[in-house]
């Protein structure tokens, strides 16, 4: 699959080529999983799975390169995460020690948390308002441009910049990092 251009890869994916989908999965799924975990989704693996199923269903409507495809799949994942969090909010609160969704979800969270070298930063991000969380994660953790971030979130670029500024200020304050002068 590496020999294919991104256009060919996406075209192959459209025609149902399994190898193409595996290539896309290997490139995009880890990012989606990390994003879902950092956003506090109850079951990051389920988010990845459902995101890919939606992508398979709607790939014929998609146009663009691999970067655009990644952004598009983040868009789908973001909605799935919001849905999952909303659903989880209706459930009875359980003690933190109990697994929320059974073995698989607990293991995904444990595995990602175990490999996080900066749990304090992760915790600080998760205490931010949702829109600021998303902007920080997309812009600085997953390295999307301001424009891509704006497209994924459905906001204007200036709105994204404002949200990012506020989020970074709050993170610095919470983590005790000295504020940057503009």
């Amino acid at each position: 699959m590496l020999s294919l251009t991104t256009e060919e890869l996406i075209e192959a994916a459209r025609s149902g080529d399994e190898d193409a989908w595996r290539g896309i999965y290997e490139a995009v799924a880890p990012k989606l999983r990390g994003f879902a975990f950092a956003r506090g989704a109850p079951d990051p693996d389920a988010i990845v799975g459902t995101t890919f199923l939606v992508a398979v269903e709607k790939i014929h409507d998609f146009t663009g390169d691999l970067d655009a495809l990644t952004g598009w799949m983040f868009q789908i994942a973001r909605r799935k995460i919001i849905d999952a969090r909303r659903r989880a909010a209706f459930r009875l609160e359980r003690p933190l020690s109990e697994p929320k969704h059974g073995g698989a979800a607990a293991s995904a969270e444990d595995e990602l948390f175990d490999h996080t070298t900066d749990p304090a930063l992760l915790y600080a991000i998760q205490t931010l308002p949702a829109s600021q969380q998303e902007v920080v994660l997309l812009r600085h953790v997953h390295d999307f441009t301001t424009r891509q971030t704006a497209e994924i979130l459905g906001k204007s670029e200036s709105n994204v910049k404002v949200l990012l500024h506020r989020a970074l200020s709050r993170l610095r304050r919470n983590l005790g990092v000295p504020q940057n002068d503009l």
Partner: protein
Amino acid sequence: MTVDPLEHRLRQLGQDLERPVPDDISDAHMLAVSRAFGFAPQRRRGRALKVGLVVLGVLAPAASAAAGTGNLPDPAQRVAARVASVVGVELPTPKPKAVTPVDSKDTERNPSGEKSVKPNDGQTRPDKQPKASPPHERDDDDDVKSGQGNKPSTPPGQAKKSDDAHDDSATDSDSDSDDSGDDTPGNGNANGKAKGNQGSNPKSQTKKSDSGTPPGQDD
């Protein structure tokens, strides 16, 4: 340019989080993806097939029932009757072209002759006598061949049986004009014998009055 320590920590966090998905989970996801791709079109095809079968299952008995009772439109009824006759099943056949000329005459006269039609219609209803259609068809044919003159078969001079027969044949077209407002021959034939009696008298009478001396009497 110094790197912002917070941004550096955030990038580091990104690398920590972007870990490859475990094999068992990625295999399950890929299986779901391939299934979604492989089965989706088949499911649609299966659905279309099911819908087609259901439609066929509903339409076929309905069409055969309509053919059996003679309720199909004329051409369809004719075809159905022909096909059924090959198999040895008798279906009511629509009365052939014979009715059309009569009806066309009726339609011409309708504007002037309506008044006479309605009262007669009421009188004839009680006389409904379901009879075998083939002889009536013949009568109709005869009527048409000989023209308008054959219609005055109702006159008292003739025997009752023959009257009835003529009445039956003529009424088909009249009953149609009364019931549906159209002189379409197909309906009259398809609706069977009982209806046929209803309008027989009116036609013959109106025709008598219109044409003056009907050729039938000349016979």
